[in-house]
């Protein structure tokens, strides 16, 4: 058969109807425990930062940077993709997944050169996240400023 028998929408509907519930459940369990474990790692780093007497401002920086370092390095040595295939959202949603979403395309498109390859591809996923995240935070700040100035 040369024509595609299903549109993408029909295919997705078919997959979700035919996937056994146990497979779905397994996906949720894997995302849950891997995501939870990464968060516990973050909690351990936070405790460590307290031990090191890092302040309230610098302690979260330490935790986030360490997790980001872990995420990019595991991506570089090819381990994070394996974890991602197992854990789905469990490894994509934590900040290590954000680090992975920057490092992975940059590594993959090396052959396109240091500028349009590595440099630009770093932001294939991070670009939209930063664009909408930062804009949303500015909107919140401006609304807060207005409310603070005129209501309070």
């Amino acid at each position: 058969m040369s024509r595609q028998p299903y549109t993408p929408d029909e295919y997705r509907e078919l997959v979700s109807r035919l996937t056994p519930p146990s497979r779905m459940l397994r996906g949720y369990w894997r995302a849950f425990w891997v995501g939870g474990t990464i968060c516990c790692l973050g909690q351990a780093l936070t405790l460590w930062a307290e031990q090191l007497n890092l302040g309230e401002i610098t302690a979260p920086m330490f935790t986030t940077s360490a997790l980001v370092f872990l995420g990019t390095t595991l991506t570089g040595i090819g381990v994070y993709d394996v974890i991602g295939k197992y854990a789905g959202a469990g490894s994509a949603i934590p900040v290590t997944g954000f680090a992975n979403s920057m490092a992975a395309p940059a590594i993959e498109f090396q052959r396109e050169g240091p500028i349009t390859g590595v440099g630009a591809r770093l932001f294939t996923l991070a670009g939209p996240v930063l664009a909408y995240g930062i804009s949303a935070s500015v909107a919140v700040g401006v609304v807060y400023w207005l409310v603070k100035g005129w209501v309070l």
Partner: protein
Amino acid sequence: MEILWMFVKAFVVGGLICDIGQLLILRTKLTNARILVIFVVSGVVLTAAGVYKPLVDFAGAGATVPLTGFGYSLAMGAIEAVNKYGFWGAFTGGITRTAAGITAAVVFGLLNALIFRPHAKP
């Protein structure tokens, strides 16, 4: 005992937030990029609504490590900077508070791309 409870809270809350992402992957046709954007923007909105801060106080890293926590930092940064610097704080606060994480991701991402060769997809 208190430390154990702290880790249990981080594990359960962090795991559940990831399961919301898993739900979006399995039940909708949203792409990965869209899901990440939805998480960060949700974090910003929930923080502005005053909902996310209590969750952070309760679950610690369980709420700050998922990408909604990135949104939380962006929004908290903007609000605190407005308190400190007035209007222009809205433009500086978000990035200032998240600068370490963003810079780490850029620098380590770049270094990794310079050091490591592409791997075959697993």
